[in-house]
């Protein structure tokens, strides 16, 4: 157990000296320490917000599925974050930020002697990163919902949070990864978190197959409406709120505030634009403004701005968000068309828009904002765009292949999917022995 060298002792339980010690405190700090304290505080607050996104994911996913599987998805939500927290502590952090090769880190297990690439307290940096890891893990729950065994989900969670996510993270964010060496830029994780989650989900649903009744005998898609749009709406608001930690927090420092303010503004504008463009797209195509698509549009805008949030200006953020909203609508339709069943739209939102956001860096990014090369639309040619394309391709491919292996392994040992009867009756009763809405009359005919 290492000791932290703290500059001050906890004062609350030391009677008498209380007033003196705490007042003396300030004087003892240098400007440097204050800056470090401020930056640490900011990263912590951002981590809290990113943690809170877990509630957002839970509510969105629960709201978009049927009542009979709600306990199951909430359980997955709690436990994937729990497992991710612990696994990332034990080994994920070491694989991601430890010194090692360009492929994987190999130092800092259990945070002991763990390198700290940030300017803030190691623990704050860890907590922030652990919350990211939990987010990547939980994205998959929604796509595989309503039919996946809880036990197998637990196993999946261990793999993604302990190994797969940290490896991708190492490539891009460790400072020693092969992708970052090339100048690949993913400011807050369109690729590292969202495309990783989205493509892991894609691998998963391909193994799992669609829910009973999602596609008619002729293969035509059928709607399986979510059981509580208010819950889903709340979830989207919570996610949007949490994203203000996710993106600006990734700056890892407050500095004079300019950068984090720009990032926050970009984040908000892209989300707003995504919601609006998804609404318009679906309105034009189907004659009615669809709430569930509008909400997916907002999330799509948020995912898309995640990589470029620090490298573009607000007007560009709006454009990125507008395109994201269109992508998500057509993405949902495309999955229906190819008969892939993703109950909550995790793949279009996080997968497709994770890719879009990463590429957008190469299109709209500014060197003046810290990018290696000027983006295509600012005369920088295809260099940055090429790097971005390569990076996102490499990451999604790696995730898809490795997660396919994981799912194949689970599939052939414990099985991924519950029985037909369990699926029809709902996972809550068979997997958890309880109902989400005891006492309510809920139609379980579909």
């Amino acid at each position: 157990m290492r000791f932290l060298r703290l500059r001050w002792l906890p004062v609350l339980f030391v009677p008498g000296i209380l007033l003196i010690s705490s007042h003396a405190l300030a004087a003892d700090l240098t400007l440097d320490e204050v800056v470090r304290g401020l930056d640490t505080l900011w990263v912590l607050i951002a981590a809290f917000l990113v943690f809170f996104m877990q509630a957002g994911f839970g509510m969105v996913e629960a709201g978009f599925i049927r009542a009979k599987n709600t306990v199951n998805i909430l359980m997955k939500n709690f436990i994937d974050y729990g497992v991710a927290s612990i696994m990332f502590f034990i080994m994920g952090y070491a694989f991601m930020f430890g010194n090692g090769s360009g492929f994987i880190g190999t130092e800092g297990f259990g945070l002991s002697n763990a390198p700290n690439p940030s300017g803030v307290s190691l623990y704050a940096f860890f907590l922030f990163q652990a919350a990211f890891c939990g987010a990547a893990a939980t994205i998959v729950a929604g796509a595989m919902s309503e039919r996946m065994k809880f036990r197998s989900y637990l196993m999946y969670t261990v793999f993604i949070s302990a190994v797969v996510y940290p490896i991708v993270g190492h490539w891009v964010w460790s400072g020693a990864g092969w992708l970052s060496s090339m100048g690949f830029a993913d400011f807050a994780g369109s690729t590292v978190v969202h495309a990783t989650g989205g493509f892991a989900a894609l691998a998963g649903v391909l193994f799992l197959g669609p829910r009973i009744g999602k596609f008619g005998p002729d293969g035509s898609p059928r709607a399986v409406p979510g059981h509580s749009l208010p819950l889903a709406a709340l979830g989207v608001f919570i996610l949007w709120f949490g994203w203000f930690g996710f993106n600006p927090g990734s700056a890892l420092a407050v500095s004079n505030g300019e950068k984090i303010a720009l990032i926050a503004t970009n984040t908000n504008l892209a989300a707003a634009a995504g919601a609006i463009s998804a609404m318009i797209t679906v309105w034009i195509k189907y004659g009615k403004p669809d709430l569930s698509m509008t909400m997916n549009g907002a999330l799509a805008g948020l995912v898309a701005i995640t990589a470029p949030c620090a490298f573009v200006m607000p007007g560009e953020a709006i454009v990125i968000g507008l395109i994201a909203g269109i992508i998500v609508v057509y993405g949902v339709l495309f999955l229906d068309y190819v008969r892939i069943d993703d109950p909550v739209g995790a793949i279009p939102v996080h997968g497709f828009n994770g890719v879009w956001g990463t590429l957008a860096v190469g299109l709209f990014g500014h060197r003046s904002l810290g990018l290696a090369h000027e983006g295509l639309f600012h005369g920088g040619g295809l260099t940055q765009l090429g790097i971005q394309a390569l990076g996102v391709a490499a990451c999604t491919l790696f995730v898809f292949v490795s997660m396919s292996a994981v799912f194949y392994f689970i599939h052939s040992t414990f099985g991924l999917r519950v029985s037909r009867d369990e699926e029809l009756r709902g996972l809550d009763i068979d997997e958890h022995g309880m109902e989400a809405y005891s006492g309510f009359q809920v139609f379980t005919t579909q």
Partner: protein
Amino acid sequence: MKLVIAYIRPERLNVVKQELYKRHIFNISVTNALGSGRQRGFVESYRGVEIEVNLLKKVRLEIAVNDEFLAPTIEGIKAGAKTGQIGDGVIFVVNLEECIRIRTDETGSVAIG
């Protein structure tokens, strides 16, 4: 004694109740139901997929009445429920063999209301 069962539009329930009150029929039981009849459903679309909803929300009334009240009951329901548009619903009449009021142990006609 008859048991009158009726399916009506949910939004007409209050009017039907008033029409029945006017005719001194105070005892009724109501359940939520879904119905498919001549009325075509409406098309919802959810996330780009259309759903034809052909089970529409209806309200089911069950009213036990003495024979002399059968006509006014039917009249009352019709008066309250009719809009003239498809989906107004139906009334079924079934013979009621016995009626028992739990609190009073009354049976037959006197127990009905």
